[in-house]
């Protein structure tokens, strides 16, 4: 069973969002990293890029496949996790921690409220298995 953290919000594309005021940190879930398998490459946007909700902002590649990552919320990229360039395997080992991908300044904090809670995400996963 995939690990799900209680204090995060989730998208149906298997991204997680941690909200801190107007700032949101985004990464991919444990379920997503597990489905992908060994991650070997992460491509991320640039600081200053403006993202609209549901835009693909980058991609995660495993040995076998490539998967786009979508931002569930709109905003401007404040930080990207450069360390994933050299250590993409962290996505497999610590998807909710050191493998955060981007931090954005949200255009509209209501978008984050509309995302799935941990309980809803858990239910979503169990219905999809």
């Amino acid at each position: 069973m995939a690990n799900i953290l209680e204090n995060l919000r989730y998208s149906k594309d298997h991204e997680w969002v941690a909200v801190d005021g107007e700032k949101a940190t985004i990464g991919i879930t444990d379920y997503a990293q597990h489905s992908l398998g060994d991650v070997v490459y992460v491509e991320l946007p640039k600081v200053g890029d403006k993202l609209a909700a549901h835009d693909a902002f980058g991609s995660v590649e495993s040995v076998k496949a490539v998967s786009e990552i979508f931002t569930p919320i709109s905003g401007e990229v404040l930080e990207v996790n450069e360390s994933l360039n050299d250590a993409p395997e962290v996505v497999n080992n610590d998807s909710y921690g050191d493998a955060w991908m981007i931090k954005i300044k949200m255009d509209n904090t209501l978008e984050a409220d509309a995302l799935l809670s941990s309980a809803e995400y858990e239910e979503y996963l169990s219905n999809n298995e």
Partner: protein
Amino acid sequence: MEDLKKTPLNRVHRELGGRMVDFGGWDMPVQYSGVIAEHLRTREHSGLFDVSHMGEFWVEGEDAIEFVNRLTTNDVAKLVDGQAQYSALTRENGTVVDDLLVYRFDQGKLLLVVNASTTEKDWDWITSHLKDENITLTNVSADYCQIAVQGKDALEIVRKLTETNLDEIKYYHFTVGKVDGVDAIISRTGYTGEDGFEVYANKDYAEQLWNKFLEVGKFGDENGILPCGLAARNTLRLESAMSLYGHEISDEITPLEANLGWICKLNKGEFSGREALQKQKESGLKRKLVGFEMKDRGIARDDFDVYINDKKVGFVTSGSPAPFLKKNIGLAFVPNEFANIGQEIKIDVRGKHLAAEIVPTPFYKREK
């Protein structure tokens, strides 16, 4: 999922936590512990592969060699008893119906081992080409299991289970013997670029043999054997630049284009596709299969386009990260004039043209 075909090891794969996928109509494990771990363990120690989905046909009778020689590119007449040969079934136009192994048991008995997803197509192709030759063809694909033990430690692992003198079996040779008391064909072949064996036996003994290989291979120990899925099988063969049917060779590609001139014996006598291949050889190839290594960060995948001087000139047949070499590599078709070591090419990776360079193949070669 109900329609998928299953090998006799299906239950075992599930018990081992294999992630099952639909592979050409077969329910097969794509990985167990992880493709990188499986790949590296096979390179450094040993890996265990279920390849029971592959097809096996017996060709028996006094015209067996003549018949198979008429349908395949390599020269079956050159085989001695106990020897195996890599070859291709080709159409009249020279393109490939399938690649296969031809095993010679004796002058009147050959075993053909073909790809899983093409087994029916191959069987139809072969049987429809039977003329008045005195042979019997038997499709035993469903009766056999095939288990591959690959890697440096494979020899010692198989040795623990057989009295057959394995040192006498040279690469691309085989013998009939007992493995863990089970009648088996023990073949020193593989698809990983490593030394190793492919063991064929009655499917009823598949679980026994599989579990025994895991046991004597010390599965669970730090350097013990690891069950490997199709993903590792693919990256291992790609590092060794071995062809995969439907990628480097296909209904639209000839063996000459895919660097398989060494299995095309154009002077052996008539065979299906000989004339077309001879003509292609004389007029010169228009395109050639090359190996490349990504220079820019990014991964080339199957079917991505290849550009030179902003012009689309070819396509990637297989592209992947190479877990042992720790590079992103691939095979691609490019026009003959650009098929030179050191030539820079661009790969269209989702709209971005990333730099790559043509390099010698195989990418990986084991030390002997």
